[in-house]
Protein backbone atom coordinates (compact mmCIF):
# COMPACT_ATOMS: atom_id res chain seq x y z
CA UNK A 1 0.00 0.00 0.00
CA UNK A 2 1.35 3.35 -1.02
CA UNK A 3 2.01 5.73 1.85
CA UNK A 4 -0.28 8.70 2.02
CA UNK A 5 1.54 11.96 1.51
CA UNK A 6 2.64 13.61 4.73
CA UNK A 7 0.81 16.74 3.68
CA UNK A 8 -2.51 14.93 3.80
CA UNK A 9 -1.93 14.08 7.44
CA UNK A 10 -1.02 17.64 8.23
CA UNK A 11 -4.10 18.92 6.44
CA UNK A 12 -6.30 16.49 8.30
CA UNK A 13 -4.86 17.43 11.64
CA UNK A 14 -5.29 21.12 10.97
CA UNK A 15 -8.88 20.56 9.90
CA UNK A 16 -9.64 18.36 12.84
CA UNK A 17 -8.19 20.73 15.39
CA UNK A 18 -10.33 23.44 13.89
CA UNK A 19 -13.40 21.23 14.08
CA UNK A 20 -12.50 20.23 17.62
CA UNK A 21 -12.21 23.83 18.66
CA UNK A 22 -15.36 24.79 16.85
CA UNK A 23 -17.19 21.87 18.38
CA UNK A 24 -16.55 23.35 21.82
CA UNK A 25 -19.07 25.99 20.94
CA UNK A 26 -21.52 23.45 19.61
CA UNK A 27 -21.07 20.98 22.45
CA UNK A 28 -24.45 21.92 23.80
CA UNK A 29 -26.02 20.39 20.71
CA UNK A 30 -24.65 16.95 21.38
CA UNK A 31 -25.15 15.89 24.94
CA UNK A 32 -23.56 18.39 27.27
CA UNK A 33 -25.81 20.92 28.92
CA UNK A 34 -25.02 24.60 28.49
CA UNK A 35 -24.82 25.22 32.22
CA UNK A 36 -21.61 23.52 33.24
CA UNK A 37 -19.24 24.54 35.97
CA UNK A 38 -15.53 25.04 35.25
CA UNK A 39 -13.40 22.85 37.46
CA UNK A 40 -9.74 22.21 38.28
CA UNK A 41 -8.79 18.97 36.60
CA UNK A 42 -5.15 18.25 37.55
CA UNK A 43 -5.16 14.51 37.12
CA UNK A 44 -4.16 11.60 34.91
CA UNK A 45 -6.43 9.98 32.34
CA UNK A 46 -5.93 7.18 29.92
CA UNK A 47 -7.66 5.89 26.83
CA UNK A 48 -7.57 2.84 24.62
CA UNK A 49 -8.63 3.49 21.05
CA UNK A 50 -9.11 0.79 18.45
CA UNK A 51 -9.11 1.84 14.82
CA UNK A 52 -8.37 0.59 11.33
CA UNK A 53 -5.81 1.84 8.89
CA UNK A 54 -6.72 2.67 5.31
CA UNK A 55 -5.47 -0.76 4.25
CA UNK A 56 -7.69 -2.47 6.84
CA UNK A 57 -4.92 -3.24 9.34
CA UNK A 58 -6.30 -3.00 12.89
CA UNK A 59 -4.46 -0.82 15.35
CA UNK A 60 -4.90 -0.18 19.05
CA UNK A 61 -3.55 2.97 20.65
CA UNK A 62 -2.93 3.32 24.37
CA UNK A 63 -2.56 6.85 25.64
CA UNK A 64 -1.97 8.12 29.15
CA UNK A 65 -1.96 11.84 29.76
CA UNK A 66 -2.32 14.45 32.44
CA UNK A 67 -4.54 17.51 32.23
CA UNK A 68 -3.59 20.47 34.42
CA UNK A 69 -5.78 23.53 34.60
CA UNK A 70 -9.39 24.57 34.75
CA UNK A 71 -11.91 23.30 32.22
CA UNK A 72 -15.63 23.64 31.80
CA UNK A 73 -17.34 20.28 31.48
CA UNK A 74 -18.08 20.77 27.79
CA UNK A 75 -14.42 21.55 27.10
CA UNK A 76 -13.36 18.58 29.20
CA UNK A 77 -15.65 16.28 27.22
CA UNK A 78 -14.52 17.86 23.97
CA UNK A 79 -10.84 17.41 24.78
CA UNK A 80 -11.26 13.77 25.76
CA UNK A 81 -13.50 13.02 22.78
CA UNK A 82 -11.04 14.68 20.43
CA UNK A 83 -8.31 12.38 21.65
CA UNK A 84 -10.30 9.36 20.50
CA UNK A 85 -11.55 10.88 17.27
CA UNK A 86 -8.26 12.37 16.17
CA UNK A 87 -6.57 9.00 16.59
CA UNK A 88 -9.34 7.22 14.71
CA UNK A 89 -9.30 9.72 11.88
CA UNK A 90 -5.54 9.77 11.53
CA UNK A 91 -5.41 5.97 11.64
CA UNK A 92 -8.02 5.59 8.93
CA UNK A 93 -6.12 7.94 6.65
CA UNK A 94 -2.75 6.26 6.98
CA UNK A 95 -1.15 2.84 6.87
CA UNK A 96 0.75 0.95 9.56
CA UNK A 97 3.97 2.32 8.10
CA UNK A 98 2.86 5.79 9.13
CA UNK A 99 2.26 4.96 12.78
CA UNK A 100 5.05 7.07 14.20
CA UNK A 101 4.03 10.02 12.07
CA UNK A 102 0.43 9.54 13.14
CA UNK A 103 1.34 9.72 16.82
CA UNK A 104 3.56 12.77 16.33
CA UNK A 105 0.79 14.58 14.51
CA UNK A 106 -1.75 13.42 17.06
CA UNK A 107 0.24 14.86 19.95
CA UNK A 108 0.81 18.13 18.12
CA UNK A 109 -2.87 18.55 17.29
CA UNK A 110 -4.06 17.81 20.81
CA UNK A 111 -1.43 20.13 22.28
CA UNK A 112 -2.80 22.87 20.04
CA UNK A 113 -6.35 22.14 21.14
CA UNK A 114 -5.46 22.09 24.85
CA UNK A 115 -3.59 25.39 24.44
CA UNK A 116 -6.70 26.88 22.90
CA UNK A 117 -8.65 25.67 25.93
CA UNK A 118 -6.08 27.14 28.31
CA UNK A 119 -4.94 23.92 29.97
CA UNK A 120 -1.66 22.03 30.02
CA UNK A 121 -1.63 18.59 28.48
CA UNK A 122 1.29 16.32 29.40
CA UNK A 123 1.80 13.03 27.61
CA UNK A 124 2.81 10.26 30.00
CA UNK A 125 2.77 7.44 27.46
CA UNK A 126 1.53 7.14 23.91
CA UNK A 127 1.83 3.73 22.35
CA UNK A 128 0.25 1.34 19.91
CA UNK A 129 0.12 -2.33 19.08
Amino acid sequence: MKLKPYTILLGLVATFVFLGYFSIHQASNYGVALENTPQQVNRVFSDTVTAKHSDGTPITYNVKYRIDGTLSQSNFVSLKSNIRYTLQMLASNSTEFDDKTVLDEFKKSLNTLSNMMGVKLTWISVGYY
Partner: protein
Amino acid sequence: MKKFNANTFNKDSEISAIVNFLVDRWNMDVVTLKGTSNNGVMEFVEKVYNAGFDAASKWIDRYALNSHLYDVYTIRRRLLLKNENGEFVHNDVVLMYLYNIMMNISDYVDSIFHDWDYSDFINLVQKDCKVKFNGLTKLKPNTYKEFTKDYSAFSGMEEYADSQQQIDEDEFDAVDSGTASSFSFPVQISLPHVAYDDIHQGRHPLYTLICAIATQGMVGAQKSNDAELKHLISLIDILQEHTDDSSRCVFPKSDLIEAIIRCRPTGVPFPENATFVDPDKMIICSSDEIDVECDLELLQQENTGKADKVLAKLKNDHSVVIHNKWLEQSNELGYKVTCAVVEYNDNKLAKLRFNPETDSMETY
Protein backbone atom coordinates in the same frame (compact mmCIF):
# COMPACT_ATOMS: atom_id res chain seq x y z
CA MET B 1 -21.85 0.31 18.65
CA LYS B 2 -22.57 0.53 14.97
CA LYS B 3 -21.65 3.03 12.34
CA PHE B 4 -24.75 4.77 11.03
CA ASN B 5 -26.14 3.10 7.92
CA ALA B 6 -29.12 4.77 6.26
CA ASN B 7 -30.30 1.47 4.76
CA THR B 8 -30.47 -0.37 8.05
CA PHE B 9 -31.21 2.45 10.48
CA ASN B 10 -34.40 1.85 12.39
CA LYS B 11 -35.75 3.86 15.31
CA ASP B 12 -37.43 0.88 16.98
CA SER B 13 -34.19 -1.13 16.93
CA GLU B 14 -32.33 1.82 18.39
CA ILE B 15 -34.84 2.19 21.21
CA SER B 16 -34.74 -1.56 21.96
CA ALA B 17 -30.94 -1.49 22.01
CA ILE B 18 -30.97 1.40 24.49
CA VAL B 19 -33.48 -0.39 26.73
CA ASN B 20 -31.51 -3.67 26.63
CA PHE B 21 -28.33 -1.85 27.51
CA LEU B 22 -29.91 0.12 30.35
CA VAL B 23 -31.73 -2.71 32.13
CA ASP B 24 -28.39 -4.42 32.83
CA ARG B 25 -26.74 -1.29 34.18
CA TRP B 26 -29.38 0.89 35.80
CA ASN B 27 -32.26 0.14 38.17
CA MET B 28 -34.76 0.66 35.39
CA ASP B 29 -37.39 -1.46 37.18
CA VAL B 30 -38.32 1.55 39.34
CA VAL B 31 -39.94 3.32 36.39
CA THR B 32 -43.67 2.79 36.15
CA LEU B 33 -46.40 4.36 34.08
CA LYS B 34 -48.41 6.71 36.27
CA GLY B 35 -51.68 5.27 37.48
CA THR B 36 -50.52 1.70 36.92
CA SER B 37 -47.96 -0.69 38.37
CA ASN B 38 -46.72 -1.53 34.88
CA ASN B 39 -43.03 -1.10 34.18
CA GLY B 40 -42.66 1.86 31.86
CA VAL B 41 -39.04 1.62 30.82
CA MET B 42 -39.78 1.04 27.13
CA GLU B 43 -42.29 3.91 26.99
CA PHE B 44 -39.91 6.20 28.88
CA VAL B 45 -36.96 5.52 26.56
CA GLU B 46 -39.20 5.79 23.52
CA LYS B 47 -40.58 9.13 24.65
CA VAL B 48 -37.16 10.66 25.31
CA TYR B 49 -35.56 9.21 22.17
CA ASN B 50 -38.40 10.47 19.97
CA ALA B 51 -38.26 13.90 21.60
CA GLY B 52 -34.58 14.09 20.61
CA PHE B 53 -35.26 12.71 17.15
CA ASP B 54 -38.06 15.21 16.50
CA ALA B 55 -36.04 18.13 17.86
CA ALA B 56 -33.30 17.36 15.35
CA SER B 57 -35.63 16.73 12.43
CA LYS B 58 -34.02 19.55 10.43
CA TRP B 59 -30.44 19.23 11.65
CA ILE B 60 -27.61 18.53 9.26
CA ASP B 61 -23.85 18.21 9.58
CA ARG B 62 -22.48 21.17 7.63
CA TYR B 63 -18.95 19.76 7.45
CA ALA B 64 -19.84 16.31 6.17
CA LEU B 65 -22.27 17.71 3.62
CA ASN B 66 -19.98 20.40 2.34
CA SER B 67 -17.26 17.84 1.89
CA HIS B 68 -19.67 15.64 -0.10
CA LEU B 69 -20.93 18.61 -2.13
CA TYR B 70 -17.40 19.62 -2.95
CA ASP B 71 -16.61 16.10 -4.17
CA VAL B 72 -19.67 15.96 -6.43
CA TYR B 73 -19.00 19.51 -7.65
CA THR B 74 -15.36 18.75 -8.44
CA ILE B 75 -16.08 15.55 -10.33
CA ARG B 76 -18.78 17.18 -12.43
CA ARG B 77 -16.64 20.22 -13.12
CA ARG B 78 -13.76 17.99 -14.20
CA LEU B 79 -16.01 16.10 -16.60
CA LEU B 80 -17.45 19.30 -18.08
CA LEU B 81 -14.01 20.80 -18.55
CA LYS B 82 -13.09 17.88 -20.76
CA ASN B 83 -15.89 18.54 -23.19
CA GLU B 84 -16.54 21.27 -25.73
CA ASN B 85 -13.33 23.04 -24.71
CA GLY B 86 -14.67 23.44 -21.21
CA GLU B 87 -17.33 25.93 -22.16
CA PHE B 88 -20.10 23.94 -20.41
CA VAL B 89 -18.54 24.74 -17.09
CA HIS B 90 -19.48 28.41 -17.28
CA ASN B 91 -23.22 27.95 -17.56
CA ASP B 92 -23.98 24.53 -16.15
CA VAL B 93 -27.10 24.75 -13.99
CA VAL B 94 -26.08 21.87 -11.73
CA LEU B 95 -22.72 23.39 -10.89
CA MET B 96 -24.54 26.60 -10.03
CA TYR B 97 -26.88 24.77 -7.65
CA LEU B 98 -24.22 22.66 -6.02
CA TYR B 99 -22.23 25.83 -5.41
CA ASN B 100 -25.30 27.63 -4.13
CA ILE B 101 -26.16 24.87 -1.67
CA MET B 102 -22.54 24.83 -0.47
CA MET B 103 -22.68 28.57 0.17
CA ASN B 104 -26.04 28.36 1.98
CA ILE B 105 -25.47 25.41 4.28
CA SER B 106 -23.79 27.38 7.05
CA ASP B 107 -26.54 30.01 7.01
CA TYR B 108 -29.13 27.27 7.14
CA VAL B 109 -27.49 25.58 10.14
CA ASP B 110 -27.05 28.92 11.91
CA SER B 111 -30.72 29.72 11.37
CA ILE B 112 -31.74 26.37 12.91
CA PHE B 113 -29.60 26.80 16.00
CA HIS B 114 -30.38 30.48 16.44
CA ASP B 115 -32.89 29.92 19.26
CA TRP B 116 -31.83 26.43 20.24
CA ASP B 117 -30.91 25.76 23.85
CA TYR B 118 -29.99 22.22 24.77
CA SER B 119 -30.51 22.70 28.51
CA ASP B 120 -33.96 24.22 28.04
CA PHE B 121 -34.91 21.37 25.78
CA ILE B 122 -33.77 18.66 28.22
CA ASN B 123 -35.55 20.44 31.09
CA LEU B 124 -38.79 20.36 29.10
CA VAL B 125 -38.41 16.68 28.26
CA GLN B 126 -37.67 15.87 31.90
CA LYS B 127 -40.70 17.81 33.07
CA ASP B 128 -42.88 16.05 30.54
CA CYS B 129 -41.59 12.62 31.59
CA LYS B 130 -42.28 13.32 35.26
CA VAL B 131 -45.93 13.90 34.37
CA LYS B 132 -46.22 10.50 32.75
CA PHE B 133 -43.93 8.23 34.80
CA ASN B 134 -43.35 7.41 38.46
CA GLY B 135 -40.03 6.52 40.02
CA LEU B 136 -37.85 8.56 37.70
CA THR B 137 -36.00 10.39 40.46
CA LYS B 138 -34.93 7.02 41.93
CA LEU B 139 -33.14 6.12 38.70
CA LYS B 140 -29.44 5.42 39.27
CA PRO B 141 -26.73 3.26 37.77
CA ASN B 142 -26.27 -0.03 39.67
CA THR B 143 -23.91 0.22 42.68
CA TYR B 144 -24.19 4.01 42.54
CA LYS B 145 -24.40 4.43 46.31
CA GLU B 146 -21.21 2.45 46.93
CA PHE B 147 -19.37 4.16 44.09
CA THR B 148 -20.14 7.67 45.29
CA LYS B 149 -19.31 7.01 48.95
CA ASP B 150 -15.74 8.36 48.80
CA TYR B 151 -16.03 10.09 45.46
CA SER B 152 -13.71 12.84 44.28
CA ALA B 153 -13.89 14.69 40.99
CA PHE B 154 -13.12 12.56 37.90
CA SER B 155 -12.42 9.43 39.93
CA GLY B 156 -13.12 6.16 38.18
CA MET B 157 -12.87 7.67 34.70
CA GLU B 158 -9.39 6.35 34.00
CA GLU B 159 -10.27 2.87 35.24
CA TYR B 160 -13.47 2.90 33.20
CA ALA B 161 -11.62 3.90 30.03
CA ASP B 162 -9.01 1.20 30.64
CA SER B 163 -11.18 -1.75 31.47
CA GLN B 164 -14.86 -1.28 30.73
CA GLN B 165 -15.44 1.29 27.99
CA GLN B 166 -14.57 -0.96 25.06
CA ILE B 167 -16.72 -3.79 26.46
CA ASP B 168 -19.69 -1.45 26.87
CA GLU B 169 -19.27 0.09 23.44
CA ASP B 170 -19.04 -3.34 21.83
CA GLU B 171 -22.16 -4.46 23.63
CA PHE B 172 -24.26 -1.39 22.84
CA ASP B 173 -26.11 -2.45 19.70
CA ALA B 174 -27.11 1.01 18.47
CA VAL B 175 -25.62 3.81 16.40
CA ASP B 176 -22.44 5.41 17.73
CA SER B 177 -23.57 8.86 18.87
CA GLY B 178 -20.12 9.95 20.00
CA THR B 179 -18.65 12.93 18.20
CA ALA B 180 -15.55 15.05 18.48
CA SER B 181 -17.42 16.97 21.17
CA SER B 182 -19.39 14.34 23.05
CA PHE B 183 -18.97 10.90 24.52
CA SER B 184 -20.76 7.86 23.18
CA PHE B 185 -23.98 6.76 24.89
CA PRO B 186 -22.34 4.04 27.03
CA VAL B 187 -19.75 6.50 28.35
CA GLN B 188 -22.31 9.19 29.10
CA ILE B 189 -24.34 6.87 31.32
CA SER B 190 -21.39 5.06 32.92
CA LEU B 191 -20.94 5.23 36.69
CA PRO B 192 -17.97 7.65 36.86
CA HIS B 193 -19.49 10.10 34.36
CA VAL B 194 -22.94 10.05 35.96
CA ALA B 195 -21.36 10.57 39.39
CA TYR B 196 -19.30 13.50 38.11
CA ASP B 197 -22.39 15.08 36.55
CA ASP B 198 -24.34 14.60 39.77
CA ILE B 199 -21.81 15.60 42.41
CA HIS B 200 -19.71 18.20 40.59
CA GLN B 201 -22.09 19.63 38.02
CA GLY B 202 -25.31 19.40 40.00
CA ARG B 203 -27.15 17.33 37.43
CA HIS B 204 -29.29 14.49 38.74
CA PRO B 205 -28.68 11.05 37.17
CA LEU B 206 -32.14 11.28 35.59
CA TYR B 207 -31.09 14.45 33.78
CA THR B 208 -27.89 12.80 32.54
CA LEU B 209 -29.82 9.77 31.35
CA ILE B 210 -32.34 11.93 29.50
CA CYS B 211 -29.45 13.85 27.89
CA ALA B 212 -27.87 10.62 26.67
CA ILE B 213 -31.08 9.08 25.29
CA ALA B 214 -32.24 12.32 23.65
CA THR B 215 -28.81 12.82 22.10
CA GLN B 216 -28.97 9.32 20.66
CA GLY B 217 -32.24 10.38 18.98
CA MET B 218 -30.76 13.67 17.77
CA VAL B 219 -27.77 11.98 16.23
CA GLY B 220 -30.04 9.43 14.54
CA ALA B 221 -32.15 12.22 13.02
CA GLN B 222 -29.17 14.27 11.91
CA LYS B 223 -27.38 11.35 10.36
CA SER B 224 -30.60 10.34 8.55
CA ASN B 225 -30.86 13.86 7.16
CA ASP B 226 -27.21 13.85 6.15
CA ALA B 227 -27.62 10.54 4.32
CA GLU B 228 -30.78 11.75 2.59
CA LEU B 229 -29.14 14.99 1.53
CA LYS B 230 -26.03 13.25 0.23
CA HIS B 231 -28.27 10.99 -1.82
CA LEU B 232 -30.29 13.93 -3.15
CA ILE B 233 -27.18 15.95 -3.97
CA SER B 234 -25.90 13.03 -6.01
CA LEU B 235 -29.29 12.82 -7.74
CA ILE B 236 -29.18 16.51 -8.68
CA ASP B 237 -25.91 15.76 -10.38
CA ILE B 238 -26.88 12.58 -12.16
CA LEU B 239 -30.38 13.64 -13.18
CA GLN B 240 -29.19 16.62 -15.03
CA GLU B 241 -27.41 16.51 -18.32
CA HIS B 242 -25.52 19.66 -19.12
CA THR B 243 -27.89 22.48 -19.86
CA ASP B 244 -28.20 26.20 -19.46
CA ASP B 245 -31.89 25.97 -20.29
CA SER B 246 -33.82 26.22 -17.03
CA SER B 247 -36.96 24.78 -18.62
CA ARG B 248 -35.17 21.45 -18.81
CA CYS B 249 -33.94 21.36 -15.24
CA VAL B 250 -34.84 18.36 -13.14
CA PHE B 251 -34.44 18.34 -9.37
CA PRO B 252 -35.31 15.75 -6.75
CA LYS B 253 -38.21 16.98 -4.59
CA SER B 254 -36.87 17.77 -1.14
CA ASP B 255 -38.05 20.06 1.64
CA LEU B 256 -34.54 20.07 3.09
CA ILE B 257 -32.89 21.25 -0.13
CA GLU B 258 -35.61 23.85 -0.65
CA ALA B 259 -35.07 25.11 2.89
CA ILE B 260 -31.33 25.38 2.30
CA ILE B 261 -31.73 27.08 -1.07
CA ARG B 262 -34.25 29.57 0.30
CA CYS B 263 -32.51 30.36 3.59
CA ARG B 264 -30.73 33.31 2.01
CA PRO B 265 -32.81 35.91 0.21
CA THR B 266 -29.89 36.55 -2.12
CA GLY B 267 -29.50 32.85 -2.96
CA VAL B 268 -30.25 31.48 -6.40
CA PRO B 269 -33.91 30.42 -6.53
CA PHE B 270 -35.03 27.28 -8.31
CA PRO B 271 -35.82 27.98 -11.97
CA GLU B 272 -39.52 28.63 -12.49
CA ASN B 273 -39.83 25.90 -15.07
CA ALA B 274 -37.84 23.29 -13.18
CA THR B 275 -39.28 19.82 -12.93
CA PHE B 276 -39.27 18.23 -9.47
CA VAL B 277 -39.15 14.49 -9.20
CA ASP B 278 -40.12 12.49 -6.14
CA PRO B 279 -36.89 10.69 -5.20
CA ASP B 280 -38.90 7.76 -3.87
CA LYS B 281 -40.16 7.09 -7.38
CA MET B 282 -36.72 7.01 -8.92
CA ILE B 283 -35.06 3.81 -9.84
CA ILE B 284 -31.32 3.63 -9.84
CA CYS B 285 -29.69 0.69 -11.54
CA SER B 286 -26.00 0.24 -11.31
CA SER B 287 -24.22 -2.93 -12.32
CA ASP B 288 -21.81 -2.62 -9.43
CA GLU B 289 -24.40 -1.46 -6.93
CA ILE B 290 -22.14 1.31 -5.78
CA ASP B 291 -22.72 5.02 -5.66
CA VAL B 292 -22.72 6.64 -9.02
CA GLU B 293 -20.35 9.39 -8.02
CA CYS B 294 -17.85 6.74 -6.92
CA ASP B 295 -18.23 5.08 -10.29
CA LEU B 296 -17.58 8.32 -12.09
CA GLU B 297 -14.54 8.95 -9.96
CA LEU B 298 -13.24 5.48 -10.71
CA LEU B 299 -13.69 6.13 -14.40
CA GLN B 300 -11.71 9.30 -14.05
CA GLN B 301 -8.91 7.64 -12.19
CA GLU B 302 -8.66 4.34 -13.97
CA ASN B 303 -10.31 4.85 -17.33
CA THR B 304 -11.43 1.28 -16.95
CA GLY B 305 -13.65 1.10 -19.97
CA LYS B 306 -16.66 0.54 -17.80
CA ALA B 307 -18.13 3.84 -18.91
CA ASP B 308 -21.34 2.40 -20.16
CA LYS B 309 -23.55 4.36 -17.86
CA VAL B 310 -26.54 6.16 -19.22
CA LEU B 311 -28.20 8.97 -17.37
CA ALA B 312 -31.79 9.25 -18.36
CA LYS B 313 -34.93 11.11 -17.62
CA LEU B 314 -37.98 8.98 -18.15
CA LYS B 315 -41.09 10.02 -19.94
CA ASN B 316 -43.31 9.41 -16.92
CA ASP B 317 -41.19 11.74 -14.80
CA HIS B 318 -39.51 8.85 -13.10
CA SER B 319 -35.79 9.00 -13.47
CA VAL B 320 -33.22 6.36 -13.81
CA VAL B 321 -29.51 5.88 -13.99
CA ILE B 322 -29.26 2.96 -16.24
CA HIS B 323 -26.52 0.63 -17.24
CA ASN B 324 -26.28 -0.16 -20.94
CA LYS B 325 -27.40 -3.70 -20.44
CA TRP B 326 -30.46 -2.37 -18.66
CA LEU B 327 -31.33 -0.12 -21.55
CA GLU B 328 -32.79 -2.95 -23.60
CA GLN B 329 -34.68 -4.19 -20.60
CA SER B 330 -36.16 -0.80 -19.81
CA ASN B 331 -39.08 -1.33 -22.17
CA GLU B 332 -39.83 -4.65 -20.56
CA LEU B 333 -39.76 -2.93 -17.20
CA GLY B 334 -42.29 -0.41 -18.45
CA TYR B 335 -40.03 2.64 -18.70
CA LYS B 336 -39.42 4.69 -21.77
CA VAL B 337 -36.13 6.52 -21.92
CA THR B 338 -36.59 9.89 -23.59
CA CYS B 339 -33.26 11.55 -23.11
CA ALA B 340 -29.91 10.57 -21.79
CA VAL B 341 -26.34 11.58 -21.32
CA VAL B 342 -23.91 8.82 -22.05
CA GLU B 343 -20.37 8.83 -20.83
CA TYR B 344 -17.93 7.03 -23.06
CA ASN B 345 -14.59 5.43 -22.35
CA ASP B 346 -12.70 8.53 -23.28
CA ASN B 347 -14.71 10.49 -20.72
CA LYS B 348 -16.69 12.26 -23.38
CA LEU B 349 -20.33 13.01 -22.88
CA ALA B 350 -22.86 12.31 -25.58
CA LYS B 351 -26.42 13.48 -25.45
CA LEU B 352 -29.14 11.15 -26.68
CA ARG B 353 -32.79 11.70 -27.36
CA PHE B 354 -35.55 9.27 -28.10
CA ASN B 355 -36.77 9.54 -31.68
CA PRO B 356 -40.33 8.19 -31.89
CA GLU B 357 -40.09 7.87 -35.67
CA THR B 358 -37.20 5.46 -35.51
CA ASP B 359 -38.14 4.21 -32.04
CA SER B 360 -34.54 4.53 -30.90
CA MET B 361 -32.13 6.74 -29.02
CA GLU B 362 -30.19 9.12 -31.25
CA THR B 363 -27.46 11.65 -30.62
CA TYR B 364 -28.29 15.30 -31.06
